[in-house]
């Protein structure tokens, strides 16, 4: 952390986005995380992505639970709505927020402890319900706030800072999300800004629960030889399975690719995602194929990244419940609360 604030300064060359905002308008307070934390990189990627997409800050809701990762919503888009929930309960709050106002852009930030240990059940159900949100898991393999114990995502056989070997198999959020019936599962690395920004944008635009697991090294407790979540290990075993281009609505796809090398996924608002395959035969829309591929690569110790699975046709929560297109918060009180007579009538039906 630092004691002085980041100077707000106008220099020639600072640009504004389509709605007249500077990148610093998408920043938050100064981070109090350790210097060099991967989470700060992810925060910067979120700032960049939201600035580039010209999302109005007041249209954003940012949510988190407990942990180092869950501190980060304070560090971006200070003009957004926010809720810092109980440990592991961010998905419930997100579900409620999106139920109440489906027009918001929802970004939930969680960690491997918050989502894969205490909040594992919550995570699964948000994925299953396909709540329209970007669900970022800042994954460093350790419990940083409690001095670096192995977390549920720590790989078997990896070494702690004090030299202990992890005995348990890891929970992989990406394959878990896919097998839970998720519609969007991606992995990235805090050190690959270009890919991360694209995946954040794709996740924001995806109409459903976009799970984005980001390997985010903990410089204090998990950046040593023997760690499988360090900067150098991740770079050495980095394996993008496919490259994603984000093509905003009403923009042409300029680059041409040979057939079979790329797939175009078109989202409801006209956004196109151009998936270019790095590994031949990889198909991000084939659920069983993706799971098989992930299992193969896991055995090899590769850190597979990219938009690994997408099915934009799966219905999201509002579609499943067949709710109104008008956000609930816009209804009159009388409509939402028809009164005690109506309640009595309802109860009578159940007697």
């Amino acid at each position, binding site marked *: 952390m630092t004691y*002085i604030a980041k100077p707000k300064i106008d220099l020639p060359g600072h640009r504004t986005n389509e709605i007249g905002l500077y990148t610093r308008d998408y920043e938050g307070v100064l981070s109090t995380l350790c210097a060099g934390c991967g989470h700060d990189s992810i925060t910067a990627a979120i700032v960049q992505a939201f600035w580039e997409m010209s999302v109005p800050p007041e249209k954003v809701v940012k949510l988190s639970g407990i942990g180092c990762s869950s501190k980060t919503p304070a560090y971006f888009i200070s003009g957004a709505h926010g809720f810092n929930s109980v440990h592991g309960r961010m998905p419930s709050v997100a579900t409620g927020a999106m139920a109440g106002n489906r027009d918001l852009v929802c970004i939930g930030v969680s960690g491997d402890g918050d989502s894969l240990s205490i909040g594992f059940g919550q995570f699964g159900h948000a994925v299953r319900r396909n709540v329209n949100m970007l669900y970022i898991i800042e994954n460093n393999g350790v419990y940083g706030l409690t001095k670096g114990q192995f977390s549920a995502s720590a790989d078997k056989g990896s070494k702690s800072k004090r030299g202990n070997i992890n005995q348990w198999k890891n929970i992989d959020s990406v394959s878990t999300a896919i097998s839970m019936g998720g519609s969007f599962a991606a992995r990235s690395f805090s050190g690959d800004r270009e890919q991360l920004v694209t995946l954040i944008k794709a996740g924001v635009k995806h109409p459903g629960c976009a799970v984005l697991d980001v390997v985010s090294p903990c410089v204090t407790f998990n950046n040593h030889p023997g760690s499988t979540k360090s900067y150098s290990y991740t770079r050495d075993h980095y394996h993008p399975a496919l490259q994603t281009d984000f093509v905003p609505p009403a923009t042409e796809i300029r680059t041409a690719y040979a057939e079979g090398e790329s797939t175009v996924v078109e989202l409801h608002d006209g956004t196109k995602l151009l998936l270019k395959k790095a590994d031949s035969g990889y198909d991000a829309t084939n659920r069983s194929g993706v799971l098989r591929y992930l299992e193969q690569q896991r055995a090899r110790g590769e850190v597979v990244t990219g938009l690994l699975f997408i099915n934009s046709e799966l219905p999201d929560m509002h579609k499943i419940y067949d709710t109104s297109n008008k956000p609930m918060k816009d209804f009159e009180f009388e409509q939402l609360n028809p009164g005690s007579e109506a309640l009595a009538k309802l109860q009578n039906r159940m007697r």
Partner: protein
Amino acid sequence: MKPTNVNNPDYFHKVVDCQWACPAHTDVPEYIRKIAQGEFTDAYIQNRESNVFPGILGRVCDRPCEPACRRGRTNESPVAICRLKRVAADHRDEDISDRLPLIPSKKNGKKIALIGAGCASLTVANDLMPVGYECTIFEALAEPGGLMRSNIPSFRLPAPVLNDEIGYIVDMGADLRLNHPIESMKDLLNEGYDAIFVGTGAPKGKELKLPGREEGNANIHIGITWLESVAFGHVEKIGKRVLIIGVGNTAMDCCRTSLRLGAEDVKVMARKPRDFFKASDWELEDAEEENVEIIVNHSPKEFVIENGRLTGMKFKQVEYEIEHGRIVHQMTTGEIIVPCDDVILAIGQDNAFPWIERDLGMEFDQWDVPVVDKTTFESTLPGVFFGGDSAFGPKNIIWAVEHGHQAAISIHRHCQAEDLTERLPVLLNLGSRKMGMHEWSYSNDFDPAARRKMEHVELSQRFKDLTTEVELGFTAEQAQQEVERCLNCDIQTVFFDDLCIECDACLDICPTRCLTMTPNVDKVDLLSQLKAPRRNQDQPMFVSEPLKQTKRVMVKDENLCLHCSLCAERCPTAAWDMQKSLFKFPRAIDHSDKHQNGKSPCQKTG
């Protein structure tokens, strides 16, 4: 691109824009920090080691440092560097004799003649006497100071300030001979001095040969000669309506002096539009504050004489066509007579050496000026050196001081029969300013405050006499706020590529996006990758060695850096560090074996 060689002292020196722009390389940020700490005497002495006349320059310096100031690139005015120098001088201890260079009682037997007691000669004496030289200064006028006394009016530069700082040098034991003009170089050469330094300035004001010049002579004055006559009390009044021809800094001194000698209507007549004025902006502002009218686009045509007396001046009215800051076409649109009682010509000045015989073996160039070496300041006659305005024409005090420093080194090497061109290199010392996890021994927090405004004496009080100093100097509060505006450019961002783990923390925190990590490609591609566009190609750019993990390079555009230290604070491995750059500019004493005893500019390290 090739990695930047930061071992070359020039790299970090250029980052300290003010110090790089200062001819004498004054360590501006360091003395501003000393002022901030209330160490006024330390700040003064540190200034003196570079520029010799802090009190004088704190009032009348040409301030090349201020246009260069990094603060000026943040959409704000530069730090008031010059006026802070005055703060150091105003508040220094009464007696600083124990901080001045020690003068050896045993001399080295070499005698130096210095012609003209101006800033150049005084600097040479200041540098040579601590080495053991005996210096004799010949001055034509009744008081020492040269141009500083004769041409700069005392309402800008009070005599006590001059006397103090000249006194420090004369009191080192210089033999100052006043009212002693040198009329023959040949005679002086025969007097047996080991070296001669010519610091006679550029004493000849330019003439304007137009019809009526001779008839109106009684009321037509040459600017610098007239200022000198005023300074020594030979002229005490001037007509009510005065025209100043020319719009340089001498013109500004002439118009403001006229107001103090009884003039009521003073006009400065400029041939060209305002963008082409030679005077410094602040001098123009000060003159206009005193209701001097500056009239542009009037080219002098003739002096109007009636009954043998000057009654006005005729001007051509000119219009200019300007493209990209250059005049491409001009046309005369009319003529006008401006009535006046006196005209002062301030259109430049020249060197003049009528007292140097042309058969001494000294080479003169096509403009009849001695040929002087730009590094050694030696003329083609070995042992005769030039400096200040007399070397390369009119510049300013701070340049004369630097000439003096360099000439002193040459004189020393000449007297020791050493090669003049074998000069010591500039040395660089870097020392970390880290105090703790997020603590630095300098004020790194960016302060957006605007430049403090210098208070002036009321207009009604100002013109009562010639010696009332117009500028009041900064108050303690003003100085305190102004020092915080300095961005500490001398606290350098030093990068250690072998420590970097490429976590992006520095890139993300940088408030000006001056850092970029990118694959190492050729220069054009690399520039296109920068996070903020490179707007000033003259500013240094740092390219690191390839980084360990990805072989990318760290690039830093120094043009934009605020020296806020956030990159270093956010760095988990201390790959960035904030280090104070201390430059050692060799002086004559460093070339001698006396440097242990004398006070060299760089006794502090780290």
